[in-house]
């Protein structure tokens, strides 16, 4: 790891101030992606601003079907929140399969969303749920928020403070893990809500999370796994690496969508 300077603000406002002052500062949420990147010298922030002690970023609020999750909420907390489980079980399920138990104790939803790793799980949920990403400055629709590989709509001094969404009538998530890294090699979140069926795919797209129009069209006709029999998605714009070719990922998109739909239908 290169040298860096550590800061521990108590408020979002202070965090933003520290970030502005730094040459090349980075926000440190749970650190489960940033610190490994720093260890292997792939990231070299001059300053890290620790968000873990900011109270206003923590907590899950559920009011009716409306859910707000503070950015500083850990995966373990999302996974085990009983109120959330009642209205949107799949979010808890998703969180309970991120990384491993130790990662889930540290990693946060805000960190994951802001990092937008193309193989992370939360972006698929956010896009499929039509979630809103809240920052210290504004609210951004998830679909506009995730703009590419590790790219988001966030400005330099902008901090994700929360995510919110309305729990849909039905939703489900299934992922196929990369055998080595255990990140999603393909993960599909399906949701059937007020605005119809939305399906978001992570781990597969060469530009990060995306909505699968083919699968949305099929599931809109009938929200059942059988609706996807014979459906094929194009391997164009899918990632290809030593673990999975684009063709294989295209297959996984359909298979995971089918299984997510079955899960959604309970």
């Amino acid at each position: 790891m290169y040298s860096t300077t550590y800061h521990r603000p108590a408020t979002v406002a202070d965090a933003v101030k520290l970030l502005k002052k730094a040459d090349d500062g980075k926000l440190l949420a749970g650190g489960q992606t940033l610190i490994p990147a720093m260890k292997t010298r792939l990231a070299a922030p001059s300053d890290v601003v620790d968000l873990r002690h900011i109270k206003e970023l923590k907590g899950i609020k559920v009011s009716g079907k409306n859910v707000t999750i503070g950015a500083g909420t850990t995966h373990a907390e999302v996974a085990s929140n009983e109120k959330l489980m009642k209205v949107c079980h799949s979010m808890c399920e998703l969180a309970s399969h991120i990384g491993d138990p130790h990662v889930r104790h540290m990693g946060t939803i805000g960190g994951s969303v802001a990092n937008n790793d193309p193989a992370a799980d939360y972006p698929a949920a956010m896009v499929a749920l039509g979630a809103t990403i809240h920052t210290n400055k504004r609210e951004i629709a998830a679909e506009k928020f995730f703009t590419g590989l590790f790219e988001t709509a966030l400005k330099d001094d902008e901090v994700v403070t929360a995510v919110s969404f309305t729990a849909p009538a039905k939703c489900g998530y299934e992922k196929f893990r990369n055998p080595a890294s255990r990140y999603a090699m393909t993960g599909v979140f399906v949701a059937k809500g007020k605005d119809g069926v939305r399906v978001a795919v992570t781990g597969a797209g060469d530009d990060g999370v995306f909505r699968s129009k083919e699968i949305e069209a099929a599931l809109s006709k009938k929200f059942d796994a059988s609706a996807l029999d014979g459906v094929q998605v194009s391997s164009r714009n899918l990632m290809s690496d030593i673990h999975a070719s684009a063709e294989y990922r295209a297959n996984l998109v359909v298979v995971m969508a089918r299984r997510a739909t079955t899960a959604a239908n309970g």
Partner: protein
Amino acid sequence: MSEVSMVVNGRKVSGSVEDRTLLVHFLRETLGLTGTHVGCDTSQCGACVVHVDGKAVKSCTMLAAQASGSEVVTIEGLADGADLHPVQAAFKQHHGLQCGFCTPGMIMAATDMIARHPEGLDEKTVRDELEGNICRCTGYHNIVQAILAASKEMGKAKKGKAKKAA
């Protein structure tokens, strides 16, 4: 440089470290607690697992400065004097270790796992929960046996205590 202070294995400790110092290096090099190991660079092997404020975390994926003010328990702090913790005893009894390098992280992960599953554990849950701990020697067979046995043993002990209290 940062001044960090924390409670490690019940003892208040402090030190001055570079901000880039990882918790694992603070434990190993500043405090001489070398039971916590580093087995990879990518935060996957779990040889470095310790408990911070009661939760299992990877001490190689946390700066010492981040842990300042926290309570930390390492493998050295698990046993009660000369008596092994039930998980330590179970690993010995069931041959849940060979070279011993992954063992401290395994045991710290296992105690956390058992605490999070007061209802008890089955083999599939144990295997899933070991996602973040890699062992190259045992093929996991006896690690799984050891954790299941310790979970049972600790469940019994808890029930016994509850009875006594009643």
